């Protein structure tokens, strides 16, 4: 097991190098540069050049990349041009907000998705099933940003119950924090809830059909108990994959929802950084989100082993 983990971790490294290369190239290929943004549009070309050299943009691209990567491997992501502080600090400051939103969305999607999928599977082909599946497929089809806009229109503008944006950390004020998080979490989580519902349902159906389940049922063990104990554990495997993917989606896909709700998360930070051509910040942020995604996926893979004893890692 330890060997497997070690090998997987080693396998991540080339992926991360590729990601680093990709992040670097992408932002550097975008036309325009931070000097223009910093000095305003009436700066003289000579002045722009001076600033560019100061920012280290005068060197060749491969040189800049190697320098940046070398530092990044040591944990130093450089300093943001516009925030005047280390990139790592800027990202860490944003991480709690993004995490709160991602986790709350995930919790929401699990709370809705799993029970819905369970009910649909257990009451298969009844109107419960149809209702759940119809809602699920609706949830997948509605664009999250449109859902967000609609929710704002109803709950913020018309009813005034919830704020239309902003952010209060949960540890500062749980009540207010939750109020700012609900609408974005629902907008983000709805699609994932629908996916999880579908996945849970199909997975449960598979398991319920298996002989050992039917045997347990025949033995007279309480219906419900059978499901919970025997089926759920096995059914969770594909669901866990979906959770892993969901987390990745929530991290990066939150961008549009963050924009709709002016939520100060990583997504908005990156978009703003791209607009300002804040190279170190964009590179660092893309690298960070990718690392998180890869690590979460690895964790998900390892969790398989916990849930399915048939899978052994050597």
């Amino acid at each position: 097991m330890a060997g497997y983990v070690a090998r997987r971790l080693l396998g991540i490294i080339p992926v991360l190098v590729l990601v680093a290369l990709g992040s670097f190239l992408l932002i550097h290929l975008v036309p325009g540069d931070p000097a223009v943004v910093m000095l305003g549009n009436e700066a003289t070309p000579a002045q722009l050049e001076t600033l560019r050299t100061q920012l280290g943009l005068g060197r060749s691209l491969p040189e800049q990349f190697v320098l940046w990567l070398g530092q990044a491997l040591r944990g130093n992501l450089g300093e943001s041009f516009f925030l005047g502080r280390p990139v790592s600090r800027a990202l860490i400051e944003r991480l709690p907000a993004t995490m709160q939103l991602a986790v709350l969305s995930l919790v929401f999607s699990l709370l809705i998705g799993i029970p819905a999928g369970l009910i649909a599977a257990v009451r298969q082909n009844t109107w419960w099933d149809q209702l759940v599946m119809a809602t699920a497929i609706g949830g997948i089809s509605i664009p999250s940003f449109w859902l967000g806009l609609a929710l704002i229109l109803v709950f913020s503008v018309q009813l005034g119950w919830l704020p239309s944006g902003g952010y209060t950390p949960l540890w500062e004020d749980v009540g207010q924090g939750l109020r700012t998080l609900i609408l974005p979490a629902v907008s983000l989580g709805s699609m994932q809830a629908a996916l999880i519902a579908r996945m849970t349902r199909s997975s449960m159906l598979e398991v319920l059909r298996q002989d050992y389940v039917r045997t347990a049922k025949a033995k007279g063990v309480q219906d419900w108990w059978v499901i919970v104990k025997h089926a759920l554990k096995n059914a969770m495997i594909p669901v866990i994959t979906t959770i892993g993917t969901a987390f990745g989606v929530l991290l990066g896909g939150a961008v549009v929802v963050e924009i709709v709700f002016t939520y100060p998360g990583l997504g908005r930070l990156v978009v703003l950084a791209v607009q300002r051509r804040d190279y170190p910040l964009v590179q660092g942020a893309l690298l960070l989100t990718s690392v998180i995604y890869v690590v979460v996926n690895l964790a998900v893979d390892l969790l398989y082993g916990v849930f399915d004893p048939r899978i052994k890692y050597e």
Partner: protein
Amino acid sequence: MKKRARIQAFAVILGVLIAGLWLTGAEGGAPTPGGVLRVAVTASPPTLDPHATTFVAAREIGLHIFENLLTFDAKFQLTPQLAERWEVSPDGKVFTFHLRRGVKFHNGKEMSADDVKASVDRFKQISPRRNEFEDLAKLEIVTPAVVRMTLSKVNAAFLAALANPIGQLAILPKEAVEGRPINKADIIGTGPFRFVEWIPDRWVKVARFKDYKPAGQPGIGGYGGARTAYVDEILFIPVPEPGARAAGLQSGDYDFADFLPPPLASRLANDKNLSVVQLAPYTYVTLYFNHAGKFKDLRLRQAVQAALDMEEIMQVASEGSGRVDPGFYFKEQVWHSTAGGELYNQKNPAKAGQLLKEAGYKGEQFIMVTNTDYDYMYKAALVILQQLKKVGMNIKIEVYDWPGAIALRKDLSKWDLFYSSHSTRFDPSANDFYFMSKTTFFAYTNPKMVALIEKANAILNFEERYKTYEEIQRLIYEDVAMLKLYDHNIWQGFSKRVKGYTPWVMIRFWDVWLEK
């Protein structure tokens, strides 16, 4: 007898008291110091170093913290700030500034000529406006309270350059600026508010500077005169989304919201707890021609000039919160003129079509570049696209974000029409660089224009200088050097608790207090 007198006296006193209470109530009461003013602004500043940038987000904060030697009043005329008076030599080349005594920096140090020299030196090195000081040949410290500047040639705009609040020549302590590269100065000034902290993308916090010495009398307006800080703290909170600014204002998260799009502004105006005001002057929207490309032909430029309907453009791009006016300076400014105005807002598609034919236009494609960062530039572009299509021009529109658009602008082979805006300029010389071949970015060359500009720069008398700039404006219209579209105003909203705010050019929170 005594009793009646006492009753009378009592009645008089009571009457006076009531009258007094009623009067103060009617005026909103005397300013009450204290409180925290939370201001929602559109962007986070890229830096707070006043010498390093002209960025709006930086200067609207900076003008609370820093001061110049002199500045402008409400009518856009020069007024003292850190220099209490100045003298100009008869040949117009030597300026002697007498600094005010006892003015303290936020760190307690007293402001003196050393600091002025250090600040000017640094400004000359790194500021985007340093070319305006190329003529400054010598700066001498005569005494700790007197600074003398000598120019190499007469420059009518020199004082204005010192006073300009945009990319201001802020005076900082010598230790805060000496040898400091860009963005690395200490944020220490002499203004009514001092810098406390900057948490990027959360807020910039400034606090009342208790030892502030006002630069003059109240009522001067603009950036001059006595500027009193009443509130304890101001938080400048960047909220890029206009919807969020409006929502935060309504819910009480912010006391002031800058830059509200018109649909939101009209909604907020119905809220009893809020005041909504229009800020003018703010900017006017402009359209540049690439004179090195297809628009070398005057008739093609004239065709565009004839085709445009400025009212339509203004209606859509500013939702009616704008003004159709030909002046290259605003009506509020002493420099305003309507010279050449008969060529403005012609709304004449027939004439445009005729001019295209005369020019032998065969349907060649023009590239029109606009951007998404400035909403009004984007909207104006879409409207103009349709107006020009109607007269038969083949236009392709390209949309970038602002940095991308600026990067593209450098390559004259890539565009024919480019959108921008001119925010409030404090001196007409600020517009010169567009029309001088050395500095123009749209390849404009006209020796007559250069001659007029150089003439204007050497005239110190206001009336004569004004007349010359009128000729310049007329030439801009007749030669169709570039086009002015319309004056764009913006809406601002604030809680009814905020008192004393007067909209002018940029947000200003001195002389503003929070009612309890």
